[in-house]
């Protein structure tokens, strides 16, 4: 009997999956670091326009968000297709913007109340009329610092 027995069969050994948890954990940590918790469900289409001269937004606790755009497809039966404003989790009319800003401002800490920025997250296909109305409302409650939130990209992407 020979010592070097011929290996039986041509079976490939099973691939070790021992490192699978490590890979998945790596992905998990990436997502935990790179993303933030959703705080309001988006009810409008929100494809932001592109700009390249952007500045970073202030810390999150100093920002108030106003969304605007067409209602997303599942709300279109109920709310139609014309552009709407979304404040927190519901659709709102232009006249509610002022009250929303005042309520948001009151909920922030005293020392932050003067440095708040309003971020306008507006869908790129919206007409300026709606934004003009929002701006007027913001001026009435003297929330003058605004930020047109945009994607980072070349402006020519907006022109087609």
């Amino acid at each position, binding site marked *: 009997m020979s010592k070097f027995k011929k290996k039986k069969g041509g079976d490939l050994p099973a691939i070790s999956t021992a490192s699978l948890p490590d890979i998945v954990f790596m992905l998990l940590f990436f997502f935990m670091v*790179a993303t933030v918790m959703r705080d309001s469900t988006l009810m409008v289409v929100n494809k932001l326009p592109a700009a390249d001269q952007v500045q970073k937004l202030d810390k999150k606790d100093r920002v108030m968000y106003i969304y605007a755009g067409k209602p997303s497809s599942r709300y279109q039966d109920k709310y139609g297709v014309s552009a709407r404003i979304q404040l927190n989790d519901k659709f709102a009319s232009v006249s509610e913007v002022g009250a929303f800003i005042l309520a948001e401002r009151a909920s922030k800490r005293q020392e932050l109340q003067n440095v708040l920025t309003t971020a306008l997250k507006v*869908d790129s296909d919206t007409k*300026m009329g709606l934004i*003009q109305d929002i701006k007027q409302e913001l001026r009435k409650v003297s929330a003058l610092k605004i930020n047109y939130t945009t994607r980072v990209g070349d402006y020519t992407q*907006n022109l087609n």
Partner: protein
Amino acid sequence: MAKRAAPEVNAGSMADIAFLLLIFFLVTTTIETDSGLNRKLPPMEDQVDPPIIREKNIFTVLVSKNDQLLVEEELADIADLRSLAIEFLDNGGGVGDEACSYCEGAKDEASSDNPDKAIISLKNDRETSYKVYIAVQNELVAAYNDLRNREYAKLFPNDGINFVEAQKTYDDPRTSGELREELRPKLDQVKARFPQKLSEAESTKSN
């Protein structure tokens, strides 16, 4: 007595647990866009007597309801807007007290006196689309940034950074206090040379 080895814990389900967590985070979080064009709105109260501004110191940009661009009453392309705005801001046509020592423009008498007086007035129609408006805003901000970069390089040639980068460093909350103190007077000096006077007027009525 023989020592019995502790049985190894089965780690086979570790991957499942990690996947579960991963999927949970994928569903409940979003990648936030947190950058944009910062603007300041004019305060509501009307000024009692608005300062008299000469026509030549105003650069009018109008975006019509068909998203066409009118620069100084003439049709223009967005691609040319930046250079037109730079030409206007950097003109420095003033004489005497109003002269601009650092401007490199054409010194045309029919254009702006100095950057401190030059105002860009951006008007739009209610039917203008937002994306075109942002593109125009972007180009106007770019004009200011280009000029400020130039001045920054002229004033502080040894810094090795430009105005936009310096501003970004200044705005970054992780920047140390000393660096910020060092940057602030420089930034202020450059901003004083080309103050951003970009007025967003109320929209014209749609016909």
